[in-house]
């Protein structure tokens, strides 16, 4: 069916729905319901014509083509994300390793290590700059990515330095510095959850924000359990696995940012979750095989949320009279 074959409001809605394929089911529902309401208003408006056929014709003409509406809606709701992708990849792959190179590699990863001290702060500063850029661009996807990244790094810093480290002596930061870190952490957490709430109709985007936190929690939980209950330690992973993991990290981001198809964006999330699980499983197998179920929590969670997203399909018949 093409635009020329549109004979009724229902035909129009069917065509429009095809144009909105990259949108979340809820977004599709909202847009289609609004247009269906417009069609209903037009069909009941005597100023459009004496009989229903005349009103129908004029109404369809005034609607404009569904292809144009779909294109304009995409421009508003799905702007070109290539620049956003570059604003994630370039800092993550270039600036952050550059900071580590300039400051120097940590010697012993203890809380006293000055390289780690400055490296953490340098990386957080870069994340803060990217948050500012995301805010200026009004890009929620950039804000979500960098706020979750900075949140995790802040938590890492504070776990090491604010007396929460298990089994290690923490550096007592000055009271003012501690207060500043706490304020930034709370402010960032509020920003992060507000962003997720604002985009709650797009479960893929919500998952995009929550996944790094879920993976970090799963990782920390597994590490903490192993370190406190057993004498086992993580195996040194082969180089090829690290390289594969890095390639997957770039690939999933590119797929998520650039793919117009919703299923591919979910696939990208699953790829990243499996990537993290793979690293954990390889690190602890064969000594701790029961780590495997815990390591699989993120990919299983992604599948569950994807299933919920699919359930929220737009109503099959947004029927017009």
């Amino acid at each position, binding site marked *: 069916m093409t635009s020329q074959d549109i004979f009724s409001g229902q035909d129009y809605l069917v065509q429009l729905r095809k144009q909105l394929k990259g949108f979340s089911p809820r977004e599709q529902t909202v847009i289609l319901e*609004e247009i269906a309401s417009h069609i209903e*208003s037009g069909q009941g408006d005597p100023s459009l014509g004496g009989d229903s056929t005349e009103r129908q014709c004029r109404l369809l003409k*005034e609607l*404009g*083509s569904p292809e144009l509406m779909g294109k304009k*809606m995409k421009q508003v709701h799905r702007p070109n994300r290539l620049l956003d992708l570059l604003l994630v990849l370039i800092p993550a792959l270039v600036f952050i390793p550059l900071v580590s190179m300039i400051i120097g590699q940590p010697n012993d990863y203890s809380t006293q290590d000055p390289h780690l001290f400055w490296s953490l702060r340098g990386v957080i500063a870069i994340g803060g700059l990217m948050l500012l850029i995301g805010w200026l661009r009004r890009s929620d996807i950039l804000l979500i990515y960098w706020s979750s990244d900075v949140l995790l790094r802040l938590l890492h810093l504070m776990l090491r330095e604010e007396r929460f480290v298990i089994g290690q002596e923490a550096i007592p930061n000055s009271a003012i510095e501690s207060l500043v870190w706490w304020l930034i952490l709370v402010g960032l957490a509020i920003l992060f959850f507000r962003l997720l709430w604002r985009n709650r109709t797009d479960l893929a985007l919500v998952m995009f924000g929550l996944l790094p936190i879920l993976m970090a929690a799963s990782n920390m939980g597994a590490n903490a359990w192993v370190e406190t209950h057993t004498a086992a330690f993580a195996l040194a992973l082969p180089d090829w696995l690290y390289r594969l993991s890095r390639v997957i990290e770039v690939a999933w981001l590119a797929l998520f940012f650039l793919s117009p198809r919703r299923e591919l964006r979910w696939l990208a999330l699953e790829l990243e979750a499996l990537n993290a699980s793979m690293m954990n499983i390889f690190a602890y197998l064969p000594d701790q095989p029961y780590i495997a179920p815990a390591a699989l929590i993120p990919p299983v969670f992604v599948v569950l949320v994807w299933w919920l997203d699919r359930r929220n399909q737009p109503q099959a018949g947004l029927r017009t009279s």
Partner: protein
Amino acid sequence: MSNLQQLRKGSTPLLILSLLAEEKMYGYQIMRKLEQRSQGYFNMTAALLYPALHQLEQEELAESEWQEGPGERRRKYYRITDKGRKVLEKSEAEWRTFVARLFETLQPPQTNLQECSG
């Protein structure tokens, strides 16, 4: 796109905000009012109107809420925000200046014959 089409496109947010500044409206109502006020001159299609409304909402110049309508369906009403009012005032002033300067420039200058003869 012709110059006229570009002008019309550029004035779309201003036109919509000016209607919303009077009262909250739903999309179909905005379209009809725009057509009526301009005597048919501004008759944008729904394919342009609704994305423009969504853009205004994203920029926080307008906000929306669903309300029950007289028919089977509920309607999405839009209202202008405080930020939208400020932008509307500024845009109106810019357009007035633009149109005034344009016509001043188009009008041939009045020459003083005495000055010319020296």
